[in-house]
């Protein structure tokens, strides 16, 4: 079976040890995590992990089963790229002098729809949000001029399908 990109979304209790528990599930199976993001979710007190892996459907399904088995995990889903709306963010730190010396830089900023976050005497910071491909493109355009620092975030994703976590939580409460 061919490998493809899957976005795993995990809704969980906000628990200190859970990240360790979940990362162990990938470690045990030698599955590389392409990106990981943890944030609050749409529900008060519920955290959301967004994990990207490149794996076969079967491996992704089994991993999600193991994640969902963890006590503090409310529900875990996995989706293909087509089933999600997803973005990444990146920050570029660049020498301020280039802004004046290299015309091209201003064009790159405009065309990439990136934002200047801050400008100081020595450097300025560009922020770009978009697909991985767009961030990569911008990176390769800026690279020849010299990038002082670069960082890219993990993927964040929203699914097209519904994730009925609130209903699930109500069911859990009823089952007590």
């Amino acid at each position, binding site marked *: 079976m061919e490998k493809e990109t899957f976005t795993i979304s995990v809704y*969980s*209790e*906000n628990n200190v*040890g859970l990240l*360790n*528990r979940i990362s*162990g599930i990938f470690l*045990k199976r030698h599955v590389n995590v392409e990106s990981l993001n943890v944030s609050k979710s749409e529900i008060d*007190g519920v955290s959301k992990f967004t994990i990207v892996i490149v794996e076969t459907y079967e491996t992704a*399904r*089994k991993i999600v*089963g*193991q994640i*969902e*088995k963890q*006590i*503090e*995990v*409310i529900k875990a889903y996995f989706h293909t790229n087509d089933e999600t709306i997803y973005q990444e963010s990146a920050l570029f730190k660049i020498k301020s002098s280039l802004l004046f010396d290299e015309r091209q830089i201003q064009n790159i900023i405009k065309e990439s729809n990136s934002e200047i976050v801050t400008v100081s005497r020595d450097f300025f910071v560009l922020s770009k949000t978009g697909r991985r491909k767009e961030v990569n493109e911008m990176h390769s355009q800026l690279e020849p001029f010299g990038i002082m620092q670069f960082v890219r975030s993990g993927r964040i994703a929203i699914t097209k399908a519904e994730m009925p976590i609130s209903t699930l*939580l109500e069911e*859990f*409460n009823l*089952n*007590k």
Partner: protein
Amino acid sequence: METLKAEKTETKNKKTMRISGAEAIIHCLLAEGVDLLYGYPGGAIMPVYDELYKFQDKLTHILTRHEQGATHAAQGYARVTGKVGVAMATSGPGATNLVTGIADAQIDSTPMVCITGQVFRHLLGSDAFQETDIIGISTPVTKWNYQITRASEIPEIMAKAFFLARSGRPGPVLVDITKNAQLEEFDFSYEQCKGVRSYKPVPKPEISAIDAAAELINRAKKPFIVFGQGVILGEAEEELKALVEKAGIPAAWTILGLSAMDTDHPLNVGMVGMHGNYGPNILTNECDVLIAIGMRFDDRVTGRLDDYAKQAKVIHFEIDPAEINKNVVSDVAVLGNSKETLSLILPKINENKHEAWHNKFKEKYKIEFDEIIKPQLNPSKPGLTMGEVLKEINIASEHKAVIVSDVGQHQMFACRYAKFKQSKSNVTSGGLGTMGFALPAAIGAKMGAMEREVVAIIGDGGYQMTIQELGVIFQHNIPVKIVVLNNEHLGMVRQWQELFFERRYASTVMTNPDFVKIAEGYHIKAKRVSERENLKDAVQEMMASKDPYFLEVRVEKEDNVFPMIPAGASVSEIRLK
């Protein structure tokens, strides 16, 4: 702890008492019905031991001679009683010594709560004396774990620990408690945990799945049941028997399913897996419907997966959704507790006999009997076999004993030849294969079932891994019967070296001490047998003893366990020699 908020408000009106965290731990244990625990004291758990001293009329603490022994004893207790076993240790090495038993309990779904002491909260992360990150270390091998750093957390975390250990698919839970939390005083009240948000212990059975399974079973010409420990954990022994008898389906067991069904039942066709019986393995690849009940298709059961029951429709009765389609893809998955799902399907099953199909098992049994079983149980050659020792134990115990086996050749002989009438009678380390399991597990098993005979069957290798637990047996006069089948080798590894490594016996020849003298050093009655003519009497004498008894049997040194499915081979390729 968001998860227990609902319960918390309820308890506000409860009567409280102002006590230390350490005393609170004792009250939690008592509230959970614990009257026995195993452990080993040390600096970071001393406040709790001080309370154990005060509560010794209500709570028996058994000092094992190593923390690993405490976990296995707790496991043995849990396996025969169905209750939660409890083990306690100090921080650092005390905690890390628990890890093998915890991993064993995790893979064999044994309910266990482990309590470890931890350094003071303000010392966490400072590399303090006997500080270790036991939460980090135990995470992959626990169902759940938690570090308590304030006394006020103790009641709800302890309640949650017991609830999680015993509910759904059981497993080990570790609670690590910093020393300051043991010393602090707080207003204690206790409420048992009834549920945890985000955790669904038992999936609700779907009637459509039950119907689909019933239809497959009713249409089947050659149905075959393989049952595992899920039947024992779900206490579904009666329901399993009813299904087997009503539908006339031959039933085989995994190593942990053993004793869920009378071994002499005419439709009990034996063990599946690497050293299982010939018929059930071969016929796995001939059945038309494979009904798996409370088992997880371990690789030792399935052999090569892409040649496992490919011709059959597979029905999987299982409590853990993560087990569905993990190793073997099922046509129908019936989620739920086995007692409930089997009860639901039973009225929908047609009566049947499947005589021709059952006769196939009898034919295969005949082949195995002539080739393997007969020479094991009634050998004509000199040199005692492990099988004949088991036969004598069966005779003396009238199939009523709890058999606790260690890991290796003797374990396979014990599971192949021991006879059982009663469930929860076979205690062995199945998934993890932990040598050293049996001696401490037998202590726990005996203390959990004092009215029953408990016989530990151990090899000379595994025996020496936890031999120090003889001290517990001696100190408390725990009347377990210890049988060491001594072949002066690490027999199973030696067998593989013989078969697959051209007899290069690397580090498998044992130079053993005088086991009888060692037992006698612990003031345990001990005997050695090396001749066939003395075996029966020796076993009878052991079984009749009211006190602990040690019996060393010098068996044939280079005997092999057969049948055998070589690693990586298909169940059809099972070898008789």
